[in-house]
């Protein structure tokens, strides 16, 4: 576990260091101004420098935590499996949920609010109810009706009608 966290801290430290440097370079291009009259890049430069500095500190500490050769060998076996498998333990649900979310964002303008909402709920309920079709269909229909009444009718939110002109 210690090995895992030091490795992720090492990668994290490096990312923050690079991002901090990038911010400082970008801020300098925008214009730092001077202490009498700070420019638009002054504050981003300070925050970028802070990020880079503490990214470097994180990197330094993670490299400082060294394990013995035997501990390293033992940890290496566990590490490969644990690192990313632990991160996405239920990778199927994780990726399909993300797919549903991005799908909703991209299809909302195309298909309109009610249809996209129905598809979103059906997809997610089907994801967890792998054996049955009828229940996810029914629940998705109920959710679509409920959300339409709540957001469009009651709260008066404006949603895209999509190519089918629904909603």
């Amino acid at each position: 576990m210690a090995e895992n966290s030091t490795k992720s801290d090492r990668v994290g430290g490096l990312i923050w260091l690079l991002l901090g440097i990038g911010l400082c370079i970008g801020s300098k291009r925008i214009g730092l101004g001077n202490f009498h009259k700070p420019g638009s890049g002054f504050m981003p430069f300070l925050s970028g420098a802070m990020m880079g500095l503490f990214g470097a500190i994180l990197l330094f500490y993670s490299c400082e935590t060294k394990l013995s050769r035997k501990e390293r060998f033992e940890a290496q076996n566990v590490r490969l499996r644990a690192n990313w498998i632990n991160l996405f333990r239920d990778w199927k649900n994780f990726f399909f949920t993300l797919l549903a979310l991005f799908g909703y964002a991209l299809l909302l303008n195309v298909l309109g609010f009610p249809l996209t909402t129905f598809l979103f709920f059906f997809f997610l309920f089907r994801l967890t109810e792998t054996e049955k079709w009828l229940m996810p269909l029914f629940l998705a229909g109920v959710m679509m009706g409920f959300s339409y009444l709540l957001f469009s009718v009651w709260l008066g939110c404006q949603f895209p009608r999509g190519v089918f002109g629904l909603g």
Partner: protein
Amino acid sequence: MVSFFENLHLGYQVAFTATNLLYCFAGVFIGTLIGVLPGIGPTGAISLLLPITYGISPVSAIIMLSGIYYGAMYGGSTTSILVNIPGEAASVVTCMDGYQMALKGRAGPALGIAAFGSFIAGTIGIIVLMFVAQPLSVVALKFGPPEFFSIMILALTISTFLAHGSMVKAIIMIALGISLSQIGLDIVTARTRFTFGITDLEDGPGLIPIVMGLFGISEVLVNIGTSKNLDIFKEKIKGLLPNLRDWANSIGAIIRGTFLGFFLGILPGGGAVVSSFVSYAVEKKISKHPDKFGTGVIEGVAGPEAANNAASSGAFIPLFTLGIPANSVMALLLGALMIHGLQPGPLLINQHPEIFWGTIMSMYLGNALLLVLNLPLIGLWVQVLKVPYRILFPLILFFCLIGTYSVNNSVFDVIVMLIFGIVGFLFKKFKYEPAPLILAFILGSMLENSLRQSLLMSEGSFSIFFTRPISASSLIIVLLLLLSAILFRKRRQVIAELEEH
């Protein structure tokens, strides 16, 4: 004194209108609900409901959003006691003795003392808030840009100091939050910063997409991999009213928890979570039978529950008097006030007394409503706990999507939220706390403005921050905090490891 009673009367008139009563009830009801449900905390719930408040008056919005915050503190104890899973972070400690009491057939008194303790602490907290906030705001009127800058630096430092785990990671979160707040048009020079030609970024990334991504979406992404059916307490809950012996054992813990919680609540970054832990530690330390803590002693429930409720009142002090949020929930309330065109700070109480006094009076009412919601209606919340997560999580995601979209009718905002959802998921996995990021994001532009104004005032000299007493003392505290963090680094690591296990 006359104006004090006039203000009280004004607050009463504002809070007791039919509309505000409804919003107060809606707030505490939703607060209890999200407190009961593990997986979504008050920050996530408030960010979900923030877009809905655009169409209502600012005072109604703040009344409802505050209700969610302190309501969640009440509701969180129910899950801790009955299921041994904290409904939200501030109720983690309640699991230790609350669940043990439930196992011994004393779920009723545990729930009862949690609700009564919360009520007493909440009410005392509001009274102290009422008396302290106005005089403090008068003092704060004398603050200039250097004072505000230093106090904001102090607030951000304390939030990193009190963050769980690595302080270095918390400081990186602060830097990231400030950097994100710099994206978009610079109002002083009218120059765009880090927009990469994307017109949607000219106003900067919105608060709501970031908060919903970091707290709502990421929470679901973490939970879908680990969710399991909750083992709900099945016995009938009886005897919700604690007996005399329970009261005798608890009243001291409630009073101590109240004052401890209130003052810790004022400090940025800690608030309810830290105060509940500290209260438990204090009760254990002064107890005649510390070995019994963790086996179901009522003081172990009463103290922390009182502390987390009092802390939620204390957290309003820096928001209303200085315009500086003490935690991520207060940062959202600050955002809500700013969206309604109000500038929180020392002038708010004088220029818009209806907001401050209306909220205070609604909190009295909300606390009484919560007592009713949490004791006679306990059966309802137990039923809510039985809703399977596979039904719940699509709903939470859907509310995040619609909540974010409806702010500007923008798919771009939704994409930003989803990106921050993934980022928040990675933050949780690699132990970066998002709360300091939100605090820094909200304070970022204020920090920049006060730094610029201070440097203009001093003609480029940083000595202005060290020659004015309040500013200098704030920065000295910052220095001491950073020094102590370096000196006690090892100790902090040990505590973080203990918390993890």
